[in-house]
């Protein structure tokens, strides 16, 4: 009983040490810091600096362009972190035998996987908070009217992007392949999130298709929560289904070496 408890505490201590190390290493990656934390907000600032983007548009249901780009910026940080940065790091760890080395110690290599997800998930959330804050302060974009629903949609979006990233890591034998798959998935993901045309402006059929993709559903859920509506069981269901399916696929295909 007590030894099992000590064992548990020791394991938690080890996992915490791995997480602390990964956070420290993440802070040493200026590229990742810029693209995940700053770039989405920077994009928002650039768009917000265009005068016409600050006028209400009938096409957007009376919203301004800057208003509909806040959720896009929120999703951008999450997609870069989950889909591009994390698979590169994880595949590199496997390729260079870092996971193997860890497997010879009492700590399980899954601790490193969990730490990576925590780091990139946390960074994506921080990036989202930054985009929302700058949107509110600089461009007077209203904060989500349904904060609880918005948070739920955001957390699900983070989970689905991490799950998708885990699948990319599982399928890529080398960092080069991870980079290629990451980029290939990045553009459709950003399209669905509404980077080129916000989901509200898409034709009906297209919007319905996009609504079935993880980031399309996330964009719609965020929009609805921002407007004060319930995010909707459909979007919620789509996000949960993708998260569960992708996590199962990653767990099945992930190789430690």
């Amino acid at each position: 009983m007590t030894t099992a408890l000590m064992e548990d505490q020791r394991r938690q201590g080890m996992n915490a040490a791995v997480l602390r190390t990964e956070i420290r290493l993440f802070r040493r990656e200026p590229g990742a810091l810029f693209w995940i934390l700053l770039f989405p907000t920077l994009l928002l600032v650039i768009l917000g600096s265009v005068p016409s983007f600050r006028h209400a548009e009938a096409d957007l249901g009376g919203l301004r362009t800057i208003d509909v780009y806040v959720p896009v910026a929120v999703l951008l940080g999450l997609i870069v972190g989950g889909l591009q940065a994390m698979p590169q790091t994880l595949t590199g760890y496997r390729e260079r035998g870092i996971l193997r080395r860890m497997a010879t110690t009492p700590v399980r290599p899954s601790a490193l996987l969990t730490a990576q997800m925590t780091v990139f998930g946390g960074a994506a959330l921080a990036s989202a908070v930054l985009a929302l804050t700058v949107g509110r302060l600089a461009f007077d974009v209203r904060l989500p009217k349904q904060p609880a629903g918005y948070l739920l949609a955001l957390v699900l979006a983070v989970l689905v992007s991490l799950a998708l990233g885990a699948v990319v890591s599982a399928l890529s034998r080398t960092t080069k392949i991870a980079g290629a798959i990451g980029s290939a998935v990045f553009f459709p993901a950003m399209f669905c999130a509404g980077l080129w045309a916000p989901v509200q402006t898409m034709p009906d059929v297209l919007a319905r298709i996009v609504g079935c993709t993880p980031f399309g559903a996330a964009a719609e859920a965020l929009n609805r929560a921002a407007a004060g509506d319930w995010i909707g069981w459909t979007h919620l269901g789509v996000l949960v289904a993708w998260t569960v399916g992708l996590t199962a696929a990653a767990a099945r295909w992930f190789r430690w070496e």
Partner: protein
Amino acid sequence: MCGHPPSRDADAMSVIEVSELRKSYGGRPVVDGVSFTVQEGEIFGVLGPNGAGKTTTVECIEGLRVPDAGRVRVTGLDPIADHARVARVLGAQLQQSELQAKLTVREALDLYASFHARPADWRPLAERLGLTGKLTTRFAKLSGGQKQRLFIALALIGDPRVVVLDELTTGLDPRARRDTWELIEDIRANGVTVLLVTHFMEEAQRLCDRIAVIDKGRVAALDTPAGLIRRSAGATVISFTPSAPLDDRDLNALPALASIAHKDGRVTLAGTDETVNAVITLLARSHVTAHQLRVTEATLDDAFLDLTKETAA
């Protein structure tokens, strides 16, 4: 009398036990019935050509691979079923394994120390390994020798009973290699059992108490370095420049002769002590003087080539 309970007697002195280990990849056997036992406090060498199955064997000991068949025990524990407990008594230095590029030496030591309940103090360890001046250097900026020394430090940081060192000195310059050898002797002097995987004969001959020569997934021989040399054909080499030509028939009739070679008037014969005695008798009888007579023991190199040739046949 000895104080050990009878049931533990068999394991009392053996730290690693491998018996009838088998592992195949895609139907091709890589390890094909390997057995050996490593005693407490010894430096045990696993020697063999590239692709002989050395690394796969030690990976089964480290718990990185699940054997297809056979039994592996580390201090009496199963490396797969009891992975966490084995990881606490076994330190591993892996072939071709790196660390996070931007992790500093000190952070790596701290991190790996945190994986153990009673880690060794990393300060004297870093001192002994000459890493004290490099504590704030990132892994990617270390030289090959410094990286290897850090890996040894990480293998030792859990204060293990046994360390597995796989191709430790590959890619090091001769100076760094010799430093590493001293370090390994130092590790053993501190009571740690060492399992050393290598393909350098000189390294095995200098360091190991016993050596398992692995070839094509099997143990071709298991003995002390001197024993391996003795048991190989042509362990003793005698060479000389005769003052007058000797009859080839007489030479070929020498007892226990393994090989014979003529070059620039010099005769080189490989055999045993018996061959040496017979040559001296032959020279005296033929009234031939042997100039620059040399009798040398074969090296482990010769023995190794001989042993691996046998299994090839």
